[in-house]
């Protein structure tokens, strides 16, 4: 009995974490879907991304390059949604006056924060689908889907790993009120460095190690490989692995960041 108790306690605790994550994800997704501003961006972004990709590559090589760019543009939506919204989400919690309530809840703050950023990348998923549809039907790009199962896994791995990257960013937003600008600042460089629109081989050699550390690089690679018929599993594993690393770092520094915010009194300031 005595030995069973810690195990039962662990199970109870894991179930609770799973419920907090699930409820948080559903709540934030619901909230974002009800925002007319987010809705408008959801309509505009895919149009914008698909048009950029199409115009850039139609003028150049066309054919395979258009397919390359269409998938890249599709992942741009997930990344843009997460990078720009992760910061504003924390700022929004400050404006709503809910940040303090969330911090004072008796759960690890990571279980509160993670569903917010994953919900954002999931919203980006809509942008991805819309971008692909626009590429296909508005611009007539013939998109292949050779390995649908791997393609599905690649998309999920990309969403989750970008969500984890957003989580790492959001950790800093909890402490520093102006850090949301960092998210906006990172939006465009990552488009380039992660190879969304330009193959990494065209970038200077010193950029490549940075690209390898970014989960979106492997996510978009996995999506392209699965679509074109190559094996995508190593890239899927790398995207998920990097996502796990971001999460571990974020969770490790979160308590320190929160203690610093409680010392500085920055949780309530809008």
């Amino acid at each position: 009995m005595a030995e069973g108790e810690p195990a039962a306690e662990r199970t109870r605790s894991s179930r609770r974490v799973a419920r907090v994550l699930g409820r948080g994800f559903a709540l934030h997704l619901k909230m974002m879907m009800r925002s007319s501003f987010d809705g408008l961006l959801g309509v505009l972004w895919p149009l914008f991304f698909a048009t950029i990709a199409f115009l850039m590559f139609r003028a150049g090589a066309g054919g395979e390059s258009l397919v390359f760019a269409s998938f890249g543009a599709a992942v741009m939506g997930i990344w843009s949604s997460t990078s720009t919204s992760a910061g504003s989400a924390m700022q929004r919690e400050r404006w709503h006056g809910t940040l303090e309530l969330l911090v004072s809840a008796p759960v690890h703050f990571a279980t509160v924060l993670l569903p917010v950023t994953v919900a954002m990348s999931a919203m980006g998923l809509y942008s991805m689908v819309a971008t692909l549809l626009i590429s296909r039907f508005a611009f007539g790009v013939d998109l292949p889907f050779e390995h649908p199962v791997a393609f599905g896994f690649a998309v999920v791995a990309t969403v989750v790993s970008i969500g984890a990257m957003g989580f790492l960013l959001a950790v800093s937003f909890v402490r520093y009120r102006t850090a949301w600008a960092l998210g906006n600042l990172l939006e465009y460089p990552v488009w380039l460095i992660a190879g969304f629109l330009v193959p990494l081989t065209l970038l200077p050699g010193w950029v490549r190690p940075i690209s390898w550390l970014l989960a979106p690089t492997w996510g978009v690679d996995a999506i392209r490989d699965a679509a074109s018929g190559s094996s995508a599993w190593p890239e899927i594993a790398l995207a998920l692995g990097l996502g796990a690393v971001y999460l571990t770092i974020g969770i490790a520094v979160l308590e320190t960041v929160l203690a610093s915010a409680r010392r500085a009194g920055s949780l309530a300031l809008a």
Partner: protein
Amino acid sequence: MPPVVEAIDLHRTYRTTTGTFRRRSLEVEAVRGVSFAIEEGELFGLLGPNGAGKTTTIKMLITLLIPTSGQARVLGRDVVEDARWVRERIGYVFGGDRGLYERLSALDNLRYFAELYGVEPGRQRARIGELLELVGLQGREKERVEGYSRGMRQRLHIARGLLHDPPVIFLDEPTIGVDPVGARELRKTIFGLKEAGKTVLLTTHYMFEADALCDRIAVVTRGKIVAEGTPRDLKDQVSDGVVVEIEVYGIENGKVESLRGIDGVTSVAVEDRDQAQVVVVQAEVGREPTHDVLARLDGVSLGRVTTREPTLEDAYVALVTEEPVAADG
């Protein structure tokens, strides 16, 4: 038995900056040595004007701010060392419009916080139902919060703070901005918490509210407790003496300050009433300051002058308007 809530010489300093180009760092002492103890089942009031340090004190007690120095304990545990343990056993409700997800329904809000506060899944539905009934929101729970009145939001706040049935509840100005009828309903709910055996810390800047609800009151001003006791004790402090009220039309600060120098005057305050201002002068028992006051107001356009006995409100005003002593800086 140790107190349920204990503040021991709490201090809290904030750093802030001034200036745009030539920035200067400033230290603001929001709380300067606050100590008090609340016993089990007691409804304790922290009373003071805006900016007195009430909210900062409460935020240290609920683990949101780390004290610059001093110690705070809830149910015998240190709020810095055992923050998680303390959080599981306290409820926090603040006043005003914020603290809710506007685009979601009351039910969505309560479900999410029930999860965060570890309410057992099988118990959530019943608990939320009980609380909606307690705060009078049953039937409205599926509406979006953005359509709620200030009073409804405040009641939803209270329901949220009670989800996990905490033994200790912190209420930070819960009736602020609520209309008189709504505020009365809220006070009834707060009194119900005390009757249910909860230990409650209430902050307010309404004297009558503290008087009506609290077993004991601490008056806070400029980050310090200047008086503590039962409402009766505080009333007794001013049961003697006299208050002179003079209606004036435009008075300079220098004139007001000069009244403080009159022998026997214990406090001077200026209140705005309609077109005029009213200078309220309190004096010690046996003094009749009217003549001296009028002499010093020479040249000021005067209206009605009345003399009356002091009330509890006067005690409060006297406490929070007293000049800081030099040692306080």
